[in-house]
């Protein structure tokens, strides 16, 4: 009896129909998504190609590539001295380390808790300049020449601030 009842129902059971429709919808959705993704990939490829072409052109003309322009400078990477190098590149210039002693310096700052020392000496010349030597806890030594005419009195940059103090001490 039970068997007859089942055989009497023609076609596919309702749950199977539902499942099939669901699959079809899912396939359509994924197809659309794949097409969208492909379009996006194409657009990204074109954009990166344009950027690399632009960077190559910049290097040829002597201009810095975009990625480098946006990066933090060496000063920014230093422990305890975190400032965007792009903002101070006009006043600070990296120079060769002279290994100046504390006795030779006009001004000394020993920042044990921050892990660095600074030594400053006023340079002789027509334009006011200060030579600053920074030594870090990891052993690195960096030297900068600070153009005092370009330094703002209210600066919060550690090296510029120190250069101003050196000018006062000298």
């Amino acid at each position, binding site marked *: 009896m039970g068997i007859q009842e089942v055989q009497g129902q023609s076609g596919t059971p309702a749950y199977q129909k539902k499942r099939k429709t669901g699959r079809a919808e899912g396939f359509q959705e994924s197809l659309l998504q794949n097409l969208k993704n492909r379009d996006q990939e194409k657009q990204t490829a074109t954009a990166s190609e344009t950027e690399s072409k632009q960077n190559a052109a910049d290097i040829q003309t002597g201009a810095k590539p975009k990625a480098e322009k946006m990066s933090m400078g060496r000063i920014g990477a230093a422990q305890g001295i975190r400032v965007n190098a792009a903002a101070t590149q006009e006043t600070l210039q990296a120079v060769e380390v002279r290994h100046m*002693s504390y006795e030779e310096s006009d001004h*000394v700052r*020993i920042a*044990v*808790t921050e892990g660095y020392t600074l030594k400053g000496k006023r340079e002789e010349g027509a334009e006011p300049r200060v030579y600053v030597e920074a030594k870090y*806890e990891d052993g690195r030594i960096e030297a900068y020449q600070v153009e005092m005419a370009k330094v703002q009195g209210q600066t919060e940059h550690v090296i510029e601030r120190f250069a101003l103090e050196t000018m006062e001490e000298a």
Partner: protein
Amino acid sequence: MEQEWSYLVEEYRAMLYRVAFSNIKNRADAEDAVQEAFLRYMKDEKPIQNKEHEKAWLIRTTIHICLDILKSGWYQRTVPWNESFENTAKNIYLPYQVKDDETLEAVLRLPVHYRNPIYLFYYEDYSIHEIAGILNEKEGTIKTRLRRGREEVKKILTEGRP
């Protein structure tokens, strides 16, 4: 020969005194330690290779003499009556002006294995390579001690204890 010795004494006396004082925290004992270091240098028959080696030898010997004095039974039973730990930074006579005496006081309160690398690196301006040579340690060890010592200095300054 006499001229050579007098030159040597003039060149290193002040710096050796500061190193000795940072370890022993007593003026008279620091001066004794420096004298003893010069005497040992004169008696020593080992050939000194160069100026850097000479300086490293003198600093190392001074530190060893200070540690021997600190370990001696007499020193452990007595307390200097005219000097206290509060004015140690004033008696070190650095050849430049240090505005932050508190930090120097904190450095002088560090345990010896942190104090010497930190003092030589920051206050005597020696490089990690030179300090490693002076203290007979690897450069990596000195870097680690500088980093950990700095943390200890922070603790002393904020919590008042090493």
